[in-house]
């Protein structure tokens, strides 16, 4: 009997995968959604790198250069700096994004400077503009350097050691590796891979539950002598297969694309190789069955395909919450059990995997067992739903 139901669940799985593979729309969804994430990341990082490079070779428009030629000359000699004539109305030019940043030197600059009064200089910038931020930061650093250079010399000229003006020497000690820091910045990768599991299973999860109901094929199927659990688990297995396939494609795409990201131009040193790929899959793949099980459980309540899709959209948002929380409020100190809580664990484990932090095989094993156990429980619950008359006949 048990062997029989296993066979039956495999029969259901085969049928669902065959059915799915003939659905042009679901295949295209999988392909497009797995291309979408790498594509987005590629565009995002390239524009970030372009911005960064624009800060290295920077043209600085200066208004009132004739009020402080010595300073402007100094500025022009810094690496990659070109001085340009500033616009007539600096504020307007920056507000209308014709310029990213403008330096304005007021007329009284020299007068104040000559008597060691702080001479005013205006850095006109729009901090709501993402594009100009690295450029503004670079210029600010240059101005600070000029300040400290002149102030040191002024102190010496008065017979005082510049060391006096530095009561504390602040030394920042970095304990994480560049890989780990980059992994935090790239914290959305886990999200995308988990999302892949979600979108990959969505077609089967909805089609094989709410879809059957909407089509009216559920009744005939359930009138078969196959146990409900065999039917539910067969559908679940099929969804898991497509979820895992989508995860594989997305992860492979992400990883192959990473070689072409200009991370080095952002000062990041980041390596993604086969060990990280395997680690990522080892973390996300066990989650796929649970995602599929939950999708099916939720979709089983829906009376139609459309209804199921909107339920699943909520579910998708819910599963993104842990990831977003982590991105917004990254906690470094983590309780041991957090590894084993689905979603939260995947997020934190993937940060470790991508950060090259060693993870013991037992952690992978426990994650697998926990996720699979939960998945099986949810599948049983779904099978239970299939006994309910309201679910079978309710429309």
């Amino acid at each position, binding site marked *: 009997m048990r062997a029989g139901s296993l*066979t*039956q669940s495999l029969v259901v799985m085969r049928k669902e995968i065959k059915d799915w593979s*003939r659905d042009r729309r679901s295949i295209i969804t999988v392909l497009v959604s797995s291309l979408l994430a790498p594509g987005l990341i590629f565009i995002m990082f390239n524009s970030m790198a372009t911005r960064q490079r624009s800060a290295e070779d920077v043209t600085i428009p200066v208004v009132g250069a004739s009020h402080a030629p010595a300073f402007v000359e100094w500025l022009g000699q810094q690496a990659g700096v070109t001085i340009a004539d500033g616009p007539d109305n600096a504020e307007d030019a920056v507000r209308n994004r014709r310029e990213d940043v403008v330096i304005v030197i007021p007329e009284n600059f020299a007068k104040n400077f000559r008597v060691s009064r702080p001479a005013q200089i205006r850095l006109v910038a729009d901090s709501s503009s993402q594009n100009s931020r690295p450029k503004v930061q670079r210029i600010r650093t240059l101005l600070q350097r000029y300040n400290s250079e002149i102030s040191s010399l002024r102190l010496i000229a008065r017979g005082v050691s510049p060391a006096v003006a530095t009561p504390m020497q602040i030394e920042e000690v970095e304990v994480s590796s560049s890989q780990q820091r980059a992994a935090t910045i790239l914290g959305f990768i886990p999200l995308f891979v988990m999302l892949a599991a979600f979108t990959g299973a969505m077609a089967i999860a909805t089609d094989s539950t709410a879809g059957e109901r909407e089509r009216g*094929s559920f009744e*005939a199927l359930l009138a*078969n*002598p196959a*146990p409900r659990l065999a039917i539910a688990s067969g559908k679940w297995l099929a969804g898991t297969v497509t979820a895992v396939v989508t995860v594989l494609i997305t992860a492979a795409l992400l990883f192959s694309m990473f070689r072409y990201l200009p991370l080095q131009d952002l000062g990041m040193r980041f390596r993604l190789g086969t060990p990280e790929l395997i680690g990522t899959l080892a973390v996300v793949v066990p989650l796929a069955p649970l995602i599929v099980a939950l999708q099916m459980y939720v979709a089983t309540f829906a009376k139609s395909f459309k209804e199921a899709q909107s339920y699943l959209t909520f579910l998708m948002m819910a599963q993104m919450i842990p990831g977003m929380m982590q991105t917004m409020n990254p906690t470094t100190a983590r309780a041991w059990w957090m590894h084993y809580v689905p979603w939260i664990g995947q997020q934190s484990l993937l940060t470790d995997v991508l950060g090259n932090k060693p993870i013991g095989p037992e952690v992978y094993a426990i994650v697998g067992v926990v996720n699979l156990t939960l998945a099986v429980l949810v599948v049983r619950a779904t099978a239970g739903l299939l006994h309910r*008359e309201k679910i079978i006949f309710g429309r």
Partner: protein
Amino acid sequence: MIRVTSLRKHFGDVRAVDGVTFAAPDGQVTGLLGPNGAGKTTTLRMLYTLMRPDAGQILVDGIDAVDDPQGARFALGVLPDQSGLYPRLTAREHIEYFGELQGITGSELRQRTEHLLQMLDMTAIADRRVAGFSHGERTKTALARAIVHNPKNVLLDEPTNGLDVMSTRAVREIIRRLKGEGHTVLFSSHVMQEVSALCDTIVVIARGRSVAAGTPDDLRTQTGHQNLEDAFVALSGLEAEGQPS
């Protein structure tokens, strides 16, 4: 052989089935006749175990369908009221899918499928996806998959509903053949002619109750109407008049 005794089922305040009793003997065609909403479909759903009766007993070849639904399902072939198909699968795949679920495999499955396709005159459309099928082709497909395991008892819920003349004839032919092969055939209909043309026994259901049972002749005799349709109206109408208003 199906035996139903004092079946009851209510949804909230609505008593959908309120005392249905009948028997469908082997090798006979039994028709459940009644107007729309009389409780035919609910009765059949309880028979094929997707609904649980509030009271009453169902025996399918002696198996209590309430206690052992799975056992009962092995002995049943069902063409439900809602008999949706999978648009991306072919007719053959539908038949094979249900065959496999019934535990039929290999050459047996192939032979059985081939047999059904020929019997239902479907060989030409066997390997086409059902998405483009006509109503009749769909019903044939659903029927074929319902009886792929050669069940002793066949339940058909309004099998000719919405079919054109040719298709209706084909379905009738199948029912006769099933009868000829010794199956117990139980089908529901609200169409008098259908029932009278096919059935050995008619069970008239109205307002959730089985109000009469017997051969067409029995019913005519019982009501005193020579016309079966008049007999039917009288049987269900009597009930209506008997209700307090």
